[in-house]
């Protein structure tokens, strides 16, 4: 049945709703029973989508598998995740707030990233859901173009915000995981070795950037404390080059170690790196340097054997 009524602006709307950008102000024929306000319309859509939840969810799951997404998961797993995504999707549509969805997106990402799910898959499945639901709305309202237009006006911006929220949440979680992994790799690649009592060796290999340098220093200082080391041999034979920032870090590491009562002997200093140190103002005479690792260890043992470990930087009385 069709009714024709003049359009009246509706005074009240729920507080946190998603508003479409355009408002239609001309006479709008009503379908049965379409809401007048956008908020009411959304609620009606959501009711419809909830009512047909199982069927639509299954359709979505099928499309996911047809598109060969989430291949890392079994059908049952896909259906299970699809169910909760669907619920959260509808909640977000209904309430217009995204916080709950953000939280859900993060926990979903935490679950599926270790399974090897990629960004394109996540974006893909969210867009597929959007399409499946849109088709369903098309089917329901196709008899009345005006109403369909309003329905899409209400649905589309909301659905797009949801897609973006989920995708961004996933990407951010991935980035966080990658950072963590990088940190772990850095830590593994620079072990501090307790060689004998009171003596640590830290062989550094490869290029050092600011992050790695900082991590090295932290690891070293904690190792000094844990092992009660008095001498540390830092071998940089395997470091091809060092810019002045990292050279500065090395100098700071030597001083910080001194403040924990440990003397640092630097071995494997190449002429280039020695030059860099001099350029930044380091007086190489105040730094213990020995040509190679073996020589450094011998020097360390000598220092320890005498039990006289010079822990002041200044050789001149103040």
């Amino acid at each position: 049945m069709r009714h024709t009524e003049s359009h009246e602006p509706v005074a009240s709307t729920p507080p946190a709703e998603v508003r479409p950008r355009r408002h239609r102000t001309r006479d709008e024929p009503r379908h049965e029973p379409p809401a007048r306000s956008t908020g009411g319309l959304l609620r009606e859509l959501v009711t419809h989508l909830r009512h047909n939840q199982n069927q639509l969810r299954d359709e979505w799951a099928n499309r996911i598998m047809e598109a060969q997404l989430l291949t890392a998961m079994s059908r049952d797993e896909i259906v299970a995740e699809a169910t909760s995504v669907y619920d959260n999707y509808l909640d977000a549509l209904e309430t217009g707030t995204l916080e709950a969805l953000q939280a859900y997106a993060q926990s979903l990402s935490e679950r599926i990233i270790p399974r090897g799910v990629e960004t394109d898959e996540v974006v893909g499945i969210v867009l597929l859901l959007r399409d499946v639901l849109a088709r369903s709305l098309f089917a329901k309202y196709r008899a009345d173009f005006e109403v369909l237009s309003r329905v899409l006006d209400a649905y589309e911006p909301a659905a797009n915000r949801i897609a973006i929220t989920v995708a961004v949440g996933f990407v951010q979680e991935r980035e966080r995981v990658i950072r963590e992994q990088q940190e772990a790799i850095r830590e593994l690649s620079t072990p501090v070795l307790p060689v004998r009592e009171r003596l640590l060796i830290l062989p550094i290999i490869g290029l050092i950037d600011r992050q790695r340098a900082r991590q090295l220093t932290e690891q070293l200082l904690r190792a000094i404390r844990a092992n009660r080391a008095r001498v540390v041999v830092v071998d940089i034979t395997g470091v091809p080059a060092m810019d002045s920032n990292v050279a500065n870090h090395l100098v700071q590491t030597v001083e910080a170690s001194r403040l924990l009562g440990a003397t640092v002997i630097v071995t494997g200093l190449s002429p280039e790196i020695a030059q860099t140190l001099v350029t930044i103002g380091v007086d190489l005479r105040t730094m213990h340097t020995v040509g190679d690792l073996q020589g450094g260890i011998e020097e360390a043992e000598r220092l320890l054997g005498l039990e006289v470990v010079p822990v002041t930087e200044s050789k001149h009385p103040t």
Partner: protein
Amino acid sequence: MAVPILKQGQYLIATIQDALTDADLQQLRVGLVTQVGRHRSRGVIVDITALDVMDSFAVRTVRDIAHMTRLRGAETVIVGMQPEVALSVVQLGLSLEGVHAALDLEEGLAFLDEQAHAVSGGRPRG
């Protein structure tokens, strides 16, 4: 809050227990310098294990303590600096040049003993 200063033989030991105000730090400096003179102490240990931040004022105070006690014949050793504090001190660019440092109280005392030995002409311990 005053920092307790204990006398252990020829050494004085000051253990900082909590964050100190500037006034506390100044009081500590005066106290140590006075007591070194009074007891003719040969060494001072300042235990900063409990200090979670060392800013420029704290560093300056420690440097002053080391300088002034040395003038009165005592060497000062700071012990127990936390790794994170050491990192921040060097990154901030503060210098503790001329101030001895050891890992903990035990190491600090060992250092002072060795210093005393060396000064009195004894052989270093093997």
